[in-house]
């Protein structure tokens, strides 16, 4: 089946702290069609995200398809608060790259 990478159809793919204990991820589309395509594909689910990052589903605290912004958003709990010794991303802003290559069937 023909597929397209998320990076080629999303306007914004980002991650950022949501408070001290969570990192939230946003996938935002400019065009409604692309948003609907990804939504309808049912590729991006809680289970898929858990597999991608190799974490328990219970660490995903929120998963929302946010129609007003043509966006898919999910949030994961950190194992330790941001900035704790040994943590590598105080702002949580470089955790999104694995999302870029997600393949969506066209």
């Amino acid at each position: 089946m023909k597929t397209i990478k998320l990076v080629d159809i999303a306007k914004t793919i980002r991650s950022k702290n949501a408070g001290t204990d969570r990192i939230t991820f946003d996938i935002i589309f400019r065009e409604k069609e692309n948003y609907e395509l990804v939504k309808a594909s049912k590729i991006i689910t809680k289970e898929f995200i858990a597999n991608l990052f190799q974490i328990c589903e219970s660490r995903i605290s929120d998963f929302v398809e946010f129609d007003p912004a043509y966006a898919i958003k999910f949030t994961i709990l950190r194992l330790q608060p941001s900035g704790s010794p040994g943590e590598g991303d105080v702002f949580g802003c470089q955790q999104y790259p694995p999302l870029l290559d997600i393949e969506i069937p066209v």
Partner: protein
Amino acid sequence: MIKKELRIICPNGHLGFSPTKEDSFWLGAQTKPDYYCSDSGSDDIGPGPLGADKCASLYVWQKHDLELMLLASREQGVPMIIGSAGDTGTNSRVDMYVQIIKDLATEHKIPKFKLAYFYSEVDKRYLRNKMENGAVIEGLDSRSFLTFEELDKTERIVAVAGVHPYIRALEMGADVIIGGRSSDIAIFAAPAIKEGFPENLAYYAGKVLECASFCAEPYGAKESVIGTITHNDVKVTAMAPWQRCTVASVAGHAMYERSNPYYEYFAGGMLDMSECLYEQWDEKTTRITNPKYIPIEGKIKVKLEGSTKVGEMYIGIAGVRDPYTIKNIDKVIELSREQVMQKFGDNGYELHYRIYGKNGVMGDLEPVKEIKSHELCIIVQGIAPTKEMAEEVTMTGTRQIFYARLPEVKGTAGTAAFVVDEVLPATSAYRWSLNHIVEVDDPLELFDVKLIEIGE
């Protein structure tokens, strides 16, 4: 008389963290907004600044941004409101900002004006008393209740103010307000509520304005935006000639930095954005209607942020280029750890390695398991009760990468490249110990507002 509309400019989403862009600020200032508001804090910067009671931002940038806002607002005779002074909103940061305002007033010979300020540090004895009287300090984001042990270990605590101290300061006649730690949206919502605008629109305005141009596109921080609140809607307009507030950029911003795009919590209630309507008003402006404000039932809950010291910290940096060493990097780290353990045992200190080129950025979340880089950078973080011990732990942990005894290594003169042959002292290591909420009887009980007169 109740105004028909209120216009608030926000020049910077985190005042002083990186300097405000002046061109769009002055374009906005020329339109004579009713208020100049900006938040200066964030918990994004980690627990270090709160624990060590220092700024994450440079003094010159903070002064620059305060100067722009003070000059414009005093010239036009309208209030200026700053929240979360000096990144953390601790008492010393509030004092520092008050002093900057005083200095600027003298430097620019600004006529007399009233400055209100409030602290937001929380005395540990206050929380201890509450807990001893049976109060529960509830944890946020899956944290458990605050324990006496965690409270005792905590270095410093700030309470996050809602609109209450800001409204109080405005009622006292303040021209300039310097706030301790605050909800960023309160800084914008307070003047609108005080001037009689609906709470739902006031809080929404705060939500959309607090990060300045992050609600505009194309992407570009530190540019000014203006929010216009009426009795029916909120409109937000980008001031930079090259930016626009679009339905997509504004709706997209609602979910920025929050775990859920629909709900925003603050002292006093919650903003429900699930039925917000967004429309393009003009080229640079988006109009928002229908946010809902849900006041809290019962006592007001105030968020607490606390930081605990873990120890003194040093940082070591080592580069590796040898392909055999790269292939065996986990073994190298293990050998290096063993050398530290031989001297210091296996507890009483912390030693962390982040291997850039492998999984330094994402750690356990990294799906790429194979090292594809021809070189690695290893950051060694050693933490111990004293500076001397932290230095030795880190030095051993770093230098043993150089001396790693791999059986077949060709480069027997050293297996690491150093930018500097030393380890670097860092600010002490801290950990966020409080992300909790406390119930209060009076929304002002943690925030005592004071008013002084300054200027010529």
